[in-house]
Every structure is written in structure tokens, then in C-alpha cells.
């Protein structure tokens, strides 16, 4: 979870675009992760982080995050989003 939060706020800078209370982030580009209902599964987050969507980068396809980092941030978001 610690690595996930680090990736979220530092390396991937998810906080630049997304709202997520647990991470203290208030980005206003992509959908608020707090508003996701139902909560996403790890697989669903991993799919979007890997392949991107619209302006969201394809962190996996473009090699912006390692596999370990993608797994960590996907678990982190699945556990904290939509709660």
C-alpha cells in the first residue's frame, strides 16, 4: 500500500488529474476516484493504468511504470477508491 501511495502521488502523478481522499489528491482532469460506484476491482484499475484512456497516459504500454509499480498502484486504488 505504501508503494502504491508513492506511485500515485510521485512517479505516476495520478494526483495531478484525480481526486482521491485517501491520497489527499484533488486533481480535476479525470473522474474523481472517490465517486466511482461500485468500487473498482484491481483488474479494472490495472487495465486502465496499463492501456490509458483518452488523455490518461498508458503507463504500462508506454513503459512509464514498472509492472511492480502498476500492481502496487492498482491494489492501492482498488482498496481506497469509491469508499
Amino acid at each position: 500500500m505504501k508503494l502504491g501511495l508513492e506511485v500515485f502521488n510521485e512517479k505516476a502523478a495520478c494526483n495531478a488529474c484525480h481526486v482521491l481522499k485517501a491520497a489527499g489528491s484533488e486533481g480535476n482532469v479525470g473522474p474523481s476516484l472517490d465517486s466511482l460506484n461500485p468500487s473498482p476491482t484491481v483488474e479494472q484499475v490495472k487495465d486502465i493504468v496499463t492501456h490509458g484512456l483518452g488523455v490518461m497516459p498508458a503507463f504500462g504500454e508506454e513503459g512509464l511504470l514498472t509492472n511492480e509499480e502498476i500492481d502496487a498502484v492498482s491494489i492501492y486504488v482498488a482498496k481506497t477508491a469509491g469508499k
Partner: protein
Amino acid sequence: MSKKINSSRRKFLAGSATVAGLAAATSVVPISVVNANHLEPGSKGLPDFIKWKKRSALIIHSGKTMESHRGAVGSSVITPIRHIYIRNNMPSMTDAQIGDRSKWKVKIEGVKNPKTFTLAQLKRMGQTTIATVLQCSGNGRGFFPHKPRGSQWRTGAAACVMWTGCPITTVVEACGGIASGTKYITATGVDHVPTGLDPKKATVERSLPKKAHKDAILAWEMNGVALPNAHGGPLRFIPPGYFGINNVKHLGKLAFTSGESSVKYMKSSYRISPIGKKGSQYPSCWEMPVKSYITSPLKSAKSGDVVISGVAFGGTKKVGKIKVSTDGGKTWNKAKFVGPNLGKYAWRQFVYKTNLKSGTYNIASKASAGGKSQPELRTENRRGYAHNGWFDHSLNIKIV
């Protein structure tokens, strides 16, 4: 001719009392469409930037994507502005970011004498009004069986709008004409790219074939009111007949160019490619294909005389014929266009009067324009763009 039954359509029909079935079955971003309807428990109110819209006319998908309920476009050609869908890629510009609207600037390049005009100057150069269909490229994505990622629009990401502004041809003339060797018209939005985002990925810039400039305008008014920020104010590029993404909001630059823009929104996004394939060699979401859908009745009607009505449009072509079926497409009947004809870029209202006994019916509409009819199914493509199949837009109604 045998009718191909789309098996996931059967699933939709079986479990389609709400779209809860869709949300559960999908592997895309789990936006709760069920809770996005204003009647659902726990449903959200409108975000501040569009507090002026009518909540009950909209289905909220996210903070920046909301579609109109199927019947909310009304039956009077022009869609009430409070019911018009919202689909923004970037956060809308605020009044503070825009500043004095009369001083808003647009740079014109790729012309013999490049110039920069303010909104105040454009208003003194010329004025015209055009009606167009504004439709998101992904309208209808929710019907694609392969569940493409992205907003799961059904019919609600479309509207018919009156735009007032300065014709591009007037602007071009004021700049001495188009520069030679140019093949495209490229429009750039100057909405602020949030810090930390790569401008090449976040800038909304679109290139269209040069011919699109002939009927295009720079619009500052929408349905009789100053263009709202949420819809791209104070100035928006309107190329009639082209998909929504090409109607670039917060327009800061218009250039005639020899090549297409290289930003993500032009190069890789909004390409109509086969499922499993992607790349800039595939066609971009440009001219809209012919399309129609019934907007009333949506669920039920009294037995006896029934008026079936809806909208039909041809993109850049005049919509020529419209047919309606009340037996799931086995037989088709000529329907009538009613109401004013606001030109080939607007949609037409159509009406089919019939007499139905009690029972359930599958009703559908099929339009044709420029010699092409709506297909029964969709053109399968990776991102679920450009849906214009009549079958997915059909409705099961109960006559009581």
C-alpha cells in the same frame, strides 16, 4: 434476408429494466450508470460548472461527462440548452481564466496575411447563424458488444444546436486568402493544460480536410445565449457535419496546414480502427454518418392511435428518407419529416402515425442520406465510435 441476432442484445433485452446489467457485466471503468439517473437513490447533483442545467434531463457518468435522457432532446428540433449533454476532455475554462471576453484572441495562420483577431473584432467583421447536430464520436458506445473503455453513452451525447458567429470564409478573406500548399484546417483549444500533464497529450487540437472550412463558423452564441464556458465559450470552432471533438472549444488558433496535427487527440485518439488494432493510419472521427432514433414513445403508450416520433440526420449530407418499423425491422413504413428544415447540418423531426393494439412491439427507425442507409448493426471498431446501426437503437414498447 435473415436477421443477425446480436446475442448481447438479447442479454440487454432480458436484463435491461435498468442498465445495472451493463454495469455489472462490463470490464470498463465502473461508473455507476444506475446511480447516475436523478431518480436513483444516492444520485449526485450537478457539478458547479453546470449548475444551470436541468438535473432531471441528464444522466451523470462523471464530473465531466453527462448525457441527455433519450427524450430530453424534445420534439422541436432545437435541443433546450439546459438539457444538452456535457463531454469535456479538459476542465472547462473559468471566467477568471478567460478574463474580458471581448478581448479573447484567436490567431489565424496558414493564410497569406496571418493575423490575430479579438472577439470584439470578429463581431464587427461578420455574423451568421447555422443549425448543426453536435454529437460525441462515442455516442452509442454503450451498445457495442466488445465493451470498449470510455463513456458508455447510449443516445444522449447528441443535440441540435443553433450557433451564431463569424463565417470562416469571412475571416480567410480578411487575411488575404488561404496559403498555397495547405491541405487541412487545424483548430487549437487554449484551455489550460493542468501542470504535470504533457501538452502533446492534453492539448485539444484537431485537423480537418480543408473543405470543412467552407460552411464553418467561429461561434460565440449558442441557442440565443452567450456561449457558456462549459460548451467552449467564449469562442468555439464549428465545422458543421463533423463529430463533436472537431468542434474545438475555447478556440485560440485556427491554421491552414499541410499536415495533420501531431497531438494525441488527433494522431492516436479518435481513430476508427478494427477491434484489436490501432494507429494513425486509420480514419479519424470526421464526418458523421447518417443516423436516426425514436424519442417517443420510449416505454409505453395507449392502444389505438400512436404517434411515433424521433430525429434523423445525415452528417454533412441532407437526410433524404426516413422509415419506421413496429415489428423489429421485418417491415418498414415511410415516415414523414415534420417541422422546419433548418438545413442539411441540423436534424429533422420525423413522425409515423399508426394504430396499435395491446401488446409489446419492437419499434425502430432507419434513415438514409447521400445514397446510404443506416446499417442494421454497427461498424465494429476498437473504441466504439460512430455507432449508427438501427437495431441497437430500437425500443421495446408496451401498448396497453
